């Protein structure tokens, strides 16, 4: 039953994976891995302009899981405390960093997410910047402080290639969403 960890380690290393997190995510995990990721990139002499693109994508993907993953454990008492799960990978291959994330989503949310991402894929950097400003202003006028819309645009404009994603139906309630961002 036991997983061959040496084999897993070697495979991750071969794929250029720098970090791999799978399980219950929380703000502490985002901060802990985030600080270490920043430190690692600095130690390796990564240019600030690259750190400034990798880090935002990592944070948005992690915080998406923390707030929106459909795979969650909810406290049985009144506190409403909950933990949501997902997977996030940071790697480096062919001269580029990449950040990948995966988590379950409700089937009811598939259509909207898919159309948002398809729209973002068609836009160039200039259009994405304009959309970011427009959505941020709109959120202001509506007094909206939550929601993943601005985070998706932020990832798209920090990436060097269009966001790649797949949504795989799992059962009548849930699908698995995975996305890859190349910096």
């Amino acid at each position, binding site marked *: 039953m036991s997983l061959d960890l040496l084999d897993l380690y070697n495979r991750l290393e071969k794929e250029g994976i720098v970090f791999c997190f799978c399980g219950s995510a929380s703000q502490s995990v985002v901060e*802990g891995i985030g600080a270490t990721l920043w430190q690692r990139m600095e130690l390796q002499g990564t240019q*600030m302009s690259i750190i*400034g*693109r990798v880090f935002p994508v990592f944070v948005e993907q992690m915080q998406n899981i923390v707030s929106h993953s459909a795979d969650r454990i909810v406290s049985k008492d009144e506190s409403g405390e909950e933990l949501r799960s997902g997977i996030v990978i940071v790697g480096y291959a062919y001269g580029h960093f990449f950040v990948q994330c995966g988590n379950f989503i409700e089937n009811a949310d598939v259509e909207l997410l898919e159309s948002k991402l398809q729209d973002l894929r068609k836009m160039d950097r200039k259009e994405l910047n304009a959309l970011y400003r427009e959505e941020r202003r709109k959120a202001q006028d509506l007094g909206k402080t939550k929601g993943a819309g601005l985070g998706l645009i932020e990832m798209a404009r920090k990436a060097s290639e269009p966001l790649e994603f797949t949504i795989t139906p799992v059962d009548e309630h849930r699908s698995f969403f995975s996305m890859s961002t190349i910096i």
Partner: protein
Amino acid sequence: MDNLVVEATKSSPYISFDAGKGLLEIKGKSYPENAAKFYSPVFDWLNEYLDTVTDQAIQVNLEIIYFNSSSSKVFLNLFDMLDRAVKNGKKITIDWRYHTENDTARECGEEFMEELEAVKFNLVEIHEE
């Protein structure tokens, strides 16, 4: 009026608002889990301060290395508030400070600048050593 001082954490910046000096500073990274909630005491303080201040010049220094998308909404809200205050006769200057090599921080400053009408918003480059 009491000063507001909040120490930095891994995901939130150092905040120091000094009513006597009219000096408001925010410095560090900003990606708290709930940005609106985190910054709510800052807005409370600022609302009260702007109500009491008359002709004191207010200097706002921001040195944000990184902020997430929800902090971005909060900062725009903050700048809008300062922009309105200037339209109502307050004297406010915002310095958006960024390190030379942090072009993301510079671009973010430029983006905020374009949103504002009245408040003086300077992009200030910090040179290493």
